[in-house]
């Protein structure tokens, strides 16, 4: 049974729901790269062989099999009872883990304070991205779960496939306060029992944690046949230090301070940051985890579209 949007979402009532963006994303589809686990029939490959147009294999009939699955043409030719196996298609469950720690607040009002123009914070960017992905998935009938976390899981919405669920997601994202320190490993550990079905785990974060520990936790999900996608969101001023005079840098989570002139330290900072990004990227590649570095400077629909297209190419979809 396919459930469409029986409760239409009021698109102008939510901060993170932009009509033009949704229109832009309307023609995109987000597919699972491998087989997923789902209770309902959907568009995605399932681990369970079932009734579909997609033939996969034959096997000998065994007592207990449904006799309707016997391929009689094969019996006529070979005089053997062969069962025709077809792929089961099911719905995909996507678990969105959105970082709402203090570091994700970077940008936004702060940027306006110093630079005088509007800017988008990392959290906002993550929210826009989450909503867009949710919309895409819900549109194709998949299930979406949302987990907001700081140092702990702060809010968890179980997977849902209706547009009213999207509304819940929007509400959850909007009411969430960015605070606390990032503790990705702890959160991933806490989330493990909450993510019951195999699906796609999309982690949207600035990933300011120990990469070794992070990937050791992600390995656990990979072991459970989850597909993991990392959206590494960084602000443009994190990627390139702003042109300012002396700045007293204060760590958003620890409160640690450093006074310096960005111009003096820019080059070295870039090297350090690039080293970190490269490390994460190489670890992700080693585990066949999709890794996307996203700058808040890039409009999220463009970034998302780019990712989906790359993903499709990698999966061999035409």
């Amino acid at each position: 049974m396919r459930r469409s949007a029986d409760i239409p979402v009021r698109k102008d009532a939510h901060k993170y729901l932009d009509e033009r963006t949704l229109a832009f994303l309307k023609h995109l589809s987000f597919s699972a790269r491998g087989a997923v686990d789902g209770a309902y029939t959907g568009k995605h490959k399932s681990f369970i062989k079932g009734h579909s147009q997609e033939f996969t294999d034959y096997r000998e009939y065994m007592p207990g099999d449904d006799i309707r699955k016997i391929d009689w043409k094969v019996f006529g030719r070979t005089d053997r009872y062969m069962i025709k196996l077809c792929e089961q298609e099911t719905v995909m469950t996507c678990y969105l883990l959105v970082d709402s720690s203090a570091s994700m607040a970077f940008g936004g009002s702060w940027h306006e304070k110093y630079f005088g123009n509007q800017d988008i914070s990392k959290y906002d960017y993550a929210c826009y991205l989450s909503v867009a992905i949710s919309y895409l998935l819900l549109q194709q009938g998949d299930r979406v779960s949302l987990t907001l976390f700081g140092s702990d899981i702060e809010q968890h919405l179980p997977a849902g496939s209706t547009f009213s669920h999207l509304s819940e997601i929007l509400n959850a994202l909007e009411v969430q306060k960015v605070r606390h320190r990032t503790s990705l490993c702890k959160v991933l550990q806490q989330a493990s029992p909450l993510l019951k079905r195999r699906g796609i785990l999309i982690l949207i974060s600035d990933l300011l944690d120990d990469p070794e520990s992070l990937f050791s936790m992600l390995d656990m999900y990979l072991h459970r046949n989850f597909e993991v996608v990392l959206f590494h969101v960084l602000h443009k001023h994190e990627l390139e230090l702003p042109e300012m005079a002396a700045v007293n840098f204060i760590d958003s989570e620890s409160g640690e301070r450093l006074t310096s002139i960005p111009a003096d330290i820019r080059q070295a900072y870039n090297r350090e940051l690039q080293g970190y990004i490269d490390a994460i990227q190489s670890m992700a590649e080693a585990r066949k985890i999709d890794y996307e570095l996203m700058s808040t400077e890039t409009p999220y629909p463009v970034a998302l579209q780019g990712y989906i297209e790359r993903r499709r190419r990698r999966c061999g979809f035409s």
Partner: protein
Amino acid sequence: MRILLGNIWFANPALGIGVFALAVPLVIHLLTRRTPKNMIFPTLRFLLAARARQSRVYHLRHLLLMIARTVLLLLILLAFLRPSLIRGGAKQDPQAGRTTIILMDVSASMEYRYAGVTPLAQAKAAAMILLDHHNKADHFNLILMGATPDNSFDEPSDNLFLLRRDIQGASVTHEYPDINAAIAEAVSELRNVSGSRHICFISDFQRSNWASVDFSRIEPDTELLFMPVGPDREENCAITDVSIRPGSPTVGESIEIVCKAANYSDRPRRLPLELKFQDGRSFKQELAIEPQSTVSTSFHLRIHQSGQYEGHLTIPEDGLNVDNQRCFILTIAEKINVLVVSDEDPKQTQSGLRFLLNAINPFEETRYAAAVASVIRSGEVTAAALSSAQVVVLSDIQELSRKSGEALLKYLKDGGSAAYFHVGQAGSQNLDHLAAWSQGDLALPFKLTGQIDLSERKSHATWAQGNFDHEILRKFKESGELGDLKFQRFFSTQRVKQKGQVLLQYDDGNIAMAQTTVGGGTLLLCNFSCSLDCSDIARHTLFVPLVHEIIRGLRPSTGRRNAFLVGEPCYTTIPPVPEAAAVTFKNPAGEPVEGSLDKAQGGTAVFFARTKACGFYRVHVADQVAGSVAVNVDPLESNLERLDVSQLKELAKGPRTAFVAASDAAGMETLLEGKPLWHYLLLAAIGMLCLEQLMTLLLRS
């Protein structure tokens, strides 16, 4: 106005106001220091890591740049202050000032003319430059280094006007400089002064004058400045010596005037040598002298009239004229003048003096005599009394006073000869005293160990051994009569090996006659007396010829005895001067000078207390020249070879010595004003500017 900071003079201290400019980089640094804005920044960990990877120098670059710019300004400011590093490492008290004693050489060699300039003129200019670089608190004194040091002031003074006048008025004295005395004077003047002490030597540093200078008496903290003057290579030819043989010729006797000339250059020279007398007679020769060598030549002549003759030897003029001529006095005596010194009464029949005088002149008239004797007592022995004597005979004298003994020794050292007939306690003591007073110049050939008196035993001794090769005894070799002489009283002796020459020995082995030298003179020691109480020698027919052979043998062979050098006192004897006669003393230029007369037996001694020029110092009696003395420059002044800087350093041995040639104006300026440092500072400033630019570029990149 200049200020002194440590060892650095600042010629433009007024520009020190620019020190405020040093604050400019600091002010700019503080002004451009921006107040940091707080920024919440999530990726601080990368900033911290980046910061940790950057070097400390990078973090301090603004401070380093500020320091570099401050140093740059400081160097420029210092360059504008015109600093100079002054010589010496000792602390200098600008209030006390410097005390400088200028020792200027005024010896004859400073008159050497080369390209129209003399070293003395250069020395004066150098001394004036020294004075020109004085400071308010500085004191100076000038000592002209002559035979005796000649100070401008009793103690260092700041009266530079008089000092400049003295420097301008300094002239060459032709004297042999007593540099040690000048140094002693300078040291005594500097002893009680405060502030830094300097002695500045301005000289040609002639090797012959400076090689034996003793710098050790100079206080170690006294700074020595050597300023050589004169050309580096000097050529000079000189007449270095004139001697007359025999020393005191008599009328009609063959005379040899021996002249020694030197060529102190690196090329052989041929020089015409002319001997000229005051009456116009002249003799000429040509000398060929190899480089750096001397040559002797002789003029032979015979003069048939007694008297004093003033003679000149000359060679052509060269850079140093004073040594191109040498004057001498040729005294032609009628007889050999023998001065007998005795305290005996010649009227006593047993007196040895009586027999001695008769032996010297056996004739009643002097017309036929070969020698004439004059007698003085031992207390009357003075340089003047001895000056006219060709031979001195001492016989039975009392104990000599120190003054008399030293006059006798001086006479002997100057080439005189004496025979001493000694017997008795006084004789023994006199020999001991003479040996002691001579300070090693008199080495007695024997020691007197005691008196022997054989008369009590009615016995006698005879001469048993003789050195008949000796000039005195040569004629008695064949006669054999010397052994007939009988001696009752004499001294027992102990031979001192390798000292003197033994001529006669008694049969008991004691020495009867021996000869020794004292400086340029000869002393004949006769261990017997002519008195009849002691021997019968005076009665023997052998006595007269023996006395005459002694006189002839002792007569000086050369006439170097009365050679006087400029700066020394000189003397001569003239015939007795009438009481009422007007006596004047004149220098070679004919100007009156100080002199004194000392009337002695047989003549009048004339003294010139100090001589300042070469030539003849004359004594005029009633407007007639009664006598003259030849004064010449010291031959050591003729050799112009000089000590180089390393040799002077070795001599001075002090760490605080500086050398600068007086002709080196820049060197003088540097030495006196200090080494200018401004260009080094400017160079350093340029270097610092480059460094600053480099730092800026590096830090920006």
